[in-house]
C-alpha cells in the first residue's frame, strides 16, 4: 500500500475528530439514563422511552413535518419562477433586485422572526396601521400556517440559487431551437427550460424540506405565543420543562432529528449528482438574447415586488422602527416615542458590547481561520480520487445533518468532557470551533469550487517540471485560487455574523455573540435591546454584503 503523506493524514484525522466526536457524544449520551457526568448513569433506552411517551414530542414532530412540507410547497414554485424571470427574461430592474433576493439568506432567522413580531404581530406597526384602515388585522403571524408560510417565503432564495445557476448553465441553443419551432416565451419556459432544470428543482425541494427540520429561530419566536413546538424548539424547552439538566433526553431528541436529517442529506447528495444531468455548457454560447416578456412584464414585476415586500421590507423595517421607539401599541403617536435610548443601553452593558466585538472578531478572524482550515482539507483531497478522499466527502456531510443547535450542545459536552479543552470553554475559541464544524460543508463547497477552476494541466506542468505535491500547492494552486479564497472568507464572514443557534448552548461570560444573545434576551422579553442588537446585526451583514458587491464577489455558485 502507498504511504499517505504525513500532513495529509494529520489534516484528515483532525477533521475526522472534530466532526465525529460531537456526533458520537450525542449518540452515547442518548443511551444513558442520566447526564454523562452523573455517577449514577446507566446504559439503556430509557431516554427514548421517556420522550416517546410525551405527547408534546409527537406534536412537535408533526409540526416539523407540516412546516417542512409547507416550506417546500411554497418555496420551490416561487423560487423557480423568480429564477426564470431573473435569468432568462428582460424583466425590468434585474440588476438591483438580484442582491435583494439574497437578503433572507444572510439575515439571521432570529432577526427576521423578531421583525415579523414587531411589524405584523398583534400590536405590530403594520398590524396597528391595518387595524386603523380595515378595522381589524387580517393575519395572525403566530399560527402554524403563518410560520410555514413565512419559513417558505424566506427559503425562496435557496431554491432560486440552485435553479438560477442550473438555468445559467443551460445552453441557450435548446431554447432557441424551441423558438425556431414556433414556441412563445411561455411555451419555451414550460416545455424546455423548466423541464431541463427539473433535477435542480427536485434537489432544492429536498434541501428546503430538510432545512424545515433545522429551523429554530422562526418557530421559537413565532410559535411561542400559541405554543406551537417543532423538534428543535421542543429540545430547547426540555430544560425548562423538567427544571434539571436532562441531557440524556435532549440527546435522545437530537438523535431523532439526526435520524430524520441523515437520509435527507444522503438523498440530496444523490440528487445533486443528477442536478447537472442536462447541463450543456457549449463553448460557443455566444450572446444570449433574453426572452422579451411583453405585457407579461408587469404582472411578473408585481409578483417579485410583493415577495420582496413581505420577506425583506416588512421584517427589516419593523426592526429598524422598533429600535428607535420607546414603546408601541394602539394610540401611540410615532413622533412622540422616538428615542435612541436602546442603543445607549447596549453601549452601557459590557456583556452586550463584548458580544458585538466577539461577533466581529469571529466573523473576520474566525472566518479567515475557518477558510484556512477548509483550504487545508480541500488540498488534502484535491485531485486524489482515493479512499481517503471519499472518506472526507462523507465526513463533510455529517455536520450538515446536525442542526446548529444540536452541534452547539454537543460541543458544550466536548468542552465539559475533554479535560485539556475545558479551559477553552469560556473563550470564543469554543464558539469558533462549533461554527467552523457546523458550516464545514458550506465552506468546503466554496473552496472546492475554486479548486476545480484550476486547470489540471497547470498543476501537471509543475509536476513534470519537478515540483513535489506540496510545492505545486504552494507555487501554483494556492496563488491561482487566492481571489476565490478571499471571496470565500467574505461569504463565511456573512454566515458567521448571521449564525445564532450554534452559540445558544455555548453562551457563557466571554463567549457572547449577537446571535446567541438574541435568543437568550428574547427569552427574558427584553424587546428594546433585542431590536437594537438586531439592527446592529443587520448592519454588520449589510457592510459585508456591500463589500461583496463592491468587489463583485459572486454570492452563489
Amino acid at each position, binding site marked *: 500500500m502507498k504511504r499517505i503523506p504525513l500532513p495529509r493524514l494529520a489534516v484528515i484525522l483532525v477533521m475526522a475528530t472534530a466532526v465525529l466526536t460531537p456526533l458520537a457524544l450525542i449518540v452515547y449520551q442518548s443511551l444513558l439514563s442520566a447526564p454523562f457526568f452523573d455517577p449514577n448513569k446507566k446504559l439503556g433506552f430509557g431516554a427514548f422511552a421517556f420522550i416517546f411517551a410525551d405527547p408534546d414530542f409527537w406534536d412537535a414532530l408533526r409540526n416539523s413535518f407540516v412546516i417542512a412540507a409547507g416550506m417546500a410547497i411554497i418555496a420551490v414554485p416561487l423560487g423557480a419562477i423568480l429564477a426564470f424571470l431573473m435569468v432568462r427574461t428582460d424583466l425590468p430592474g434585474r440588476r438591483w433586485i438580484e442582491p435583494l433576493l439574497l437578503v433572507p439568506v444572510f439575515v439571521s432567522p432570529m432577526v427576521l422572526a423578531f421583525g415579523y413580531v414587531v411589524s405584523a404581530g398583534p400590536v405590530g406597526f403594520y398590524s396597528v396601521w391595518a387595524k386603523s384602515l380595515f378595522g381589524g388585522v387580517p393575519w395572525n403571524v403566530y399560527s402554524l400556517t403563518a410560520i410555514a408560510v413565512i419559513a417558505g417565503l424566506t427559503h425562496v432564495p435557496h431554491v432560486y440559487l440552485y435553479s438560477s445557476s442550473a438555468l445559467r448553465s443551460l445552453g441557450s441553443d435548446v431554447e432557441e431551437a424551441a*423558438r*425556431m419551432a414556433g414556441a412563445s416565451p411561455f411555451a419555451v419556459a414550460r416545455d424546455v427550460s423548466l423541464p431541463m432544470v427539473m433535477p435542480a428543482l427536485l434537489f432544492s425541494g429536498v434541501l428546503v424540506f430538510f432545512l424545515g427540520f433545522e429551523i429554530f429561530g422562526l418557530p421559537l419566536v413565532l410559535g411561542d405565543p400559541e405554543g406551537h413546538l417543532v423538534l428543535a424548539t421542543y429540545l430547547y424547552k426540555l430544560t425548562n420543562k423538567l427544571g434539571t439538566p436532562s441531557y440524556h433526553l435532549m440527546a435522545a431528541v437530537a438523535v431523532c432529528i439526526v435520524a430524520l436529517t441523515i437520509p435527507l442529506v444522503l438523498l440530496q447528495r444523490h440528487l445533486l449528482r443528477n442536478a447537472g*444531468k*442536462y447541463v*450543456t455548457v457549449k463553448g*460557443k454560447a455566444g450572446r444570449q*438574447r433574453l426572452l422579451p416578456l411583453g405585457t407579461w412584464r408587469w404582472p411578473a414585476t408585481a409578483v417579485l415586488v410583493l415577495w420582496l415586500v413581505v420577506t425583506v421590507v416588512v421584517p427589516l423595517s419593523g426592526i429598524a422602527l422598533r429600535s428607535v421607539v420607546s414603546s408601541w401599541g394602539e394610540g401611540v403617536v410615532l413622533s412622540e416615542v422616538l428615542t435612541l435610548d436602546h442603543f445607549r443601553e447596549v453601549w452601557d452593558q459590557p456583556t452586550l458590547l463584548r458580544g458585538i466585538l466577539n461577533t466581529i472578531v469571529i466573523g473576520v478572524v474566525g472566518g479567515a481561520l475557518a477558510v484556512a482550515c477548509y483550504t487545508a482539507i480541500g488540498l488534502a483531497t484535491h485531485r486524489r480520487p482515493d479512499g481517503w478522499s471519499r472518506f472526507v466527502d462523507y465526513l463533510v456531510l455529517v455536520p450538515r445533518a446536525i442542526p446548529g443547535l444540536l452541534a452547539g450542545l454537543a460541543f458544550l459536552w466536548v468542552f465539559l468532557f475533554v479535560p485539556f479543552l475545558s479551559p477553552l470553554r469560556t473563550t470564543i475559541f469554543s464558539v469558533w470551533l462549533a461554527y467552523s464544524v457546523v458550516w464545514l460543508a458550506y465552506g468546503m463547497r466554496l473552496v472546492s469550487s475554486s479548486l476545480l477552476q484550476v486547470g489540471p494541466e497547470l498543476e501537471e506542468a509543475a509536476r513534470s517540471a519537478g515540483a513535489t505535491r506540496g510545492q505545486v500547492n504552494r507555487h501554483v494552486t494556492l496563488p491561482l485560487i487566492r481571489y476565490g479564497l478571499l471571496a470565500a472568507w467574505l461569504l463565511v464572514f456573512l454566515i458567521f455574523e448571521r449564525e445564532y443557534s450554534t452559540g445558544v448552548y455555548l453562551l457563557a461570560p466571554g463567549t457572547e455573540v449577537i446571535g446567541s444573545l438574541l435568543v437568550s434576551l428574547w427569552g427574558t422579553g427584553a424587546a428594546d435591546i433585542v431590536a437594537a442588537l438586531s439592527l446592529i446585526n443587520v448592519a454588520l451583514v449589510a457592510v459585508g454584503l456591500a463589500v461583496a458587491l463592491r468587489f463583485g464577489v459572486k454570492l452563489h455558485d
Partner: protein
Amino acid sequence: MTKLVVGDLHLSYGDNAILKGVSMQLAQGEVVSLLGPSGSGKTTLLRAVAGLEQPHRGTIAIEDKVVFDGARSVEVPAEKRNLGLVFQSYALWPHRTVFDNVAYGLKLRNVSAGETKERVTSALANLGLDALAQRLPHQLSGGQQQRVAIARALVYNPPVILMDEPLSNLDAKLREEARAWLRELILRLELSALVVTHDQNEAMAMSDRILLLNNGVIEQQGTPEEMYARPQTLFTAEFMGSNNALRGTVAEVRDGSARLAGDGWSLWGAARSTARAGAAGTGMVRLERVRVADAAGDNRVRLPLVTSMYLGEKWEHLFSAGELRLRAYGRAPLAKGEHWLEIARDDMWVF
C-alpha cells in the same frame, strides 16, 4: 420564386460592428453557402435571418413577407418566422425522445395527433431514423443526432431551412459521407437552404452558390466554380483552395497580363484590377497548377527541391530559394537538386 431576400443588413454588438451592409437572395430550390473565416459574421447573418439576433438597419423578407425592417421598426419574433434551423450543437432536447423532439413543432401548430404521427414517421423515414423514434438523444451517435436535428427542422415544411455548420460536429471520416448525403437530401426534398460553413470544400461540394464573407461584408459571390477559378480579390483567391503566394514587384502590365518579378525570377500572370506597374504585387497560384518541367522554357523558374511529402494519392514537393517558395503536387518522388517549374500564364493571378 425568391424565398429569402436580405437587404443592406447592419448589425453590431455595442460598438463592435459585425455586419456592415450585407445583401443577398435565395431562390426556390437553391442551396447557398455562407463561407468565411471566424469572425466574418456568417453565423450572425444566419441568426439574424432566424430572428435570434437583432440587426439595427436593413431588411429581411421571407417569401415576400417582411420579417425585419430597421426603418419601419418591423421585427417578427423568431417563433413567428416559421423557419427551420439546424444548430451546430444540434440542440436536441435531452428530456424528449426522438419522436417528441421532431413532433414538437407540429404540436405547437395544433396539428392533430394522427397527422403528427404520420408526418413525424415519414420525416424520420426520410432520414433513415425509423427505428430510433423512441430513443433519447443521448442514446444516439453524432451522425444520428444530426439527422434528428434536420428532421426536427424540416417536419413543418419551412420555406427555408437554415443550417449552422451542420457537419462540424462530425468525425472527419463521417463528414465527407454526410456532405454527399446532405446534398442529395436537399435535392430530393427540393429544399431551399442557407448553410453556414468555414470549410471551403464543404461549401463547394454542397452549394449552388457561395457567398464569401469577410469582416462583415460580402467579398465575392458566385457558383463554386466561379469562386474557385475566377477569384476577383486576393482574399477570395487565398481563401479558396491551396495556394502559393509569390511576393514581388509588378514589372509591367500589358493586355490584361502582368509580369511579376522578384530576386532572380520573373513570371507572367493574369492581371487583376489591383495590379499596378511599379507597385508591390502578389501572385497567387493553386498548388495543382504548378508543373514540374524538364528544361527551361516560357514562364518557368528554376528552384532547388527542399523536401517531398508523401500524401497517399500524390506527393507534395517544396521548392525554395531566398524569398521564393513554391509548393507543387506530383505523381512520383523527385530527385534531389534543382528543377524547372512551369506556371501557365492563365494560372497565376497577379493582385
